[in-house]
């Protein structure tokens, strides 16, 4: 196994692919942080599903050329975004309903197109289905180059708009009061999501690309209460997931990249959920336990004060005043004794 990896790392193509998926994961984590805080985790999901018919149409028009497939994905990503907005604004439907509608309709259309293509003589060897779950190792240098450029562009946009996105998401009214074009700023963020989904279709796949956007951000949120730190953490988690997914799927060519990327990111999320300080489950449980213990000791002391007499013989009346069961009462009694609250 290790030898497999070492020999793989010797392959210059894979090294480029790894660098590319690292950039992709980084940019996804950064954009994902803003998307998560804008409470639009599902929008990325809809966009990535909507990209499928775009990819198929791109293939029908130009054959298996990455630029064509990407253009198709981007156009349909934008259409889905626009569709969600229109439905949300002009009907009484809530946004999640609009997202569900758009997601399923476009994905349905995509599957119909995909089946038609794979059933056709030209299409059955197209390998188009690898775009659904991603196959990073199949990328050629020009593909990697394109993916990386988009990822770096999106990263640059996030750096440039950091302060603006932060305020527009946190307090859009205040941002509007400053005279900022809140709609434009929001659109640039949405466009960044479309771009990063588009960039990731070949390496990570259409379906799971949205998970690479959201999961690193959720994991990062557990560790910090500062946006800057969250964005950096999310980018590191994203990059790590991207690289790990690529490596594992390259060793076993049968496993598509997307699922491994998502599993990696999810493991990190789960570890964060459990072990992060303050926000993590373990820290919260421990903090609550500590509080409970402190509270019980206070109660035990109070009960001791309320019972007349000073001798250790008042155990029973004390227990009654405290209202605790035998086991617990004994523990607390011993604690009182040990700390010399009575002689």
């Amino acid at each position: 196994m290790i030898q497999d990896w070492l020999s793989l790392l010797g392959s210059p193509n894979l090294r480029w692919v790894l660098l590319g998926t690292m950039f992709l994961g980084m940019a996804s984590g950064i954009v994902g942080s803003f998307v998560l805080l804008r409470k639009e985790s599902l929008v990325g999901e809809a966009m990535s599903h909507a990209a499928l018919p775009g990819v198929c149409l791109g293939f029908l028009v130009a054959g298996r050329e990455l630029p064509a497939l990407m253009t198709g994905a981007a156009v349909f990503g934008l259409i889905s975004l626009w569709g969600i907005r229109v439905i949300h604004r002009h009907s009484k439907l809530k946004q999640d309903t609009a997202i569900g509608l758009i997601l399923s309709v476009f994905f349905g259309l995509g599957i119909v197109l995909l089946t038609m293509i794979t059933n056709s003589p030209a299409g059955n060897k197209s390998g188009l289905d690898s775009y659904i779950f991603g196959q990073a190792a199949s990328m050629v240098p020009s593909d990697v180059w394109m993916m990386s450029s988009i990822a770096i562009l999106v990263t640059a946009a996030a750096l440039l708009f950091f302060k603006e996105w932060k305020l527009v998401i946190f307090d859009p009214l205040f941002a509007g009061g400053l005279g900022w074009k809140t709609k434009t700023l929001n659109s640039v963020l949405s466009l960044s999501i479309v771009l990063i989904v588009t960039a990731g279709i070949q390496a990570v796949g259409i379906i799971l690309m949205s998970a690479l956007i959201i999961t690193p951000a959720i994991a990062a949120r557990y560790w910090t209460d500062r946006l800057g730190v969250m964005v950096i953490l999310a980018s590191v988690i994203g990059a790590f997931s991207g690289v790990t997914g690529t490596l594992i799927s390259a060793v076993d060519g049968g496993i598509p990249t997307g699922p491994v990327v998502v599993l990696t990111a999810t493991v990190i999320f789960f570890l964060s959920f459990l072990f992060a300080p303050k926000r993590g489950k373990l820290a919260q449980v421990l903090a609550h336990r500590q509080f409970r213990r402190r509270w019980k000791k206070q109660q035990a002391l109070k009960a001791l004060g309320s019972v007349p007499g000073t001798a250790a013989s008042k155990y029973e009346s004390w227990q009654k005043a405290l209202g605790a069961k035998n086991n617990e009462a004994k523990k607390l009694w011993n604690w009182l004794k040990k700390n010399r609250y009575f002689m």
Partner: protein
Amino acid sequence: MSDALDVQNITVAYQESTVLENADFSVPQGKLVGIVGPNGAGKSTLLKAVLDLVPKLHGRAVFFGEELKKVRSRIGYVPQRGEVDWDFPTSALDVVTMGRYGHVGLFRRPRKHDKEKAYECLKELGMEQYAKRQIRELSGGQQQRVFLARAMAQDASLYIMDEPFAGVDAKTERAIILLMQKWKQENKTIIVVHHDLQTAQEYFDWMILLNKHVVAQGPTEEVFTKEKLQETYGGQLAFLESSSSEKAGNPS
């Protein structure tokens, strides 16, 4: 001296009904102004329309004799506390620093003196020990004081505040009043949407009674009369008077 705010016939409609009809009033500089009216009277909408945050069907607002665009940096807006995500990963000091964004300019980072200014504002409101605190960990009153410090950091000459007293503790209420009076002494103008009739008379020296349209405007002693309040609140006033003792200080 031109008026701090001159509202000319503003009408706002959401879908098929108007929420504000021909609102027309002006506010002289250096006044502490209360906008008072029942629920659904369009008070918040009025503020948003004036600041171009919601589209107007008709009418316009003029600030210091100028278009809004030219005087944005002189206007500080304090939205309702409930309209932001308090779980957002940011600290009290960071939120106050946002008050400097208008001065910092687009695509630039706040500089050291912006942060120092923000810290001073927090301190002025007795919040300096919470500077590094995540905003979710603050109480409602403390959150409101952070918002106030942010407005202060803007260094504006006209402040527009949406229900700053809603759901805050007595200490915060006092801090807000003191700050507003200080601003007034500096000849700044403060316009406040307010819910509580009990305190309105005491807080404001100028008042606008609003119920979709402007019922009355002017110095408090002229406007805050039983007849005019009756006209603004209609049948709700009797209810307000009888139940205000228990509702005071806790407007929804």
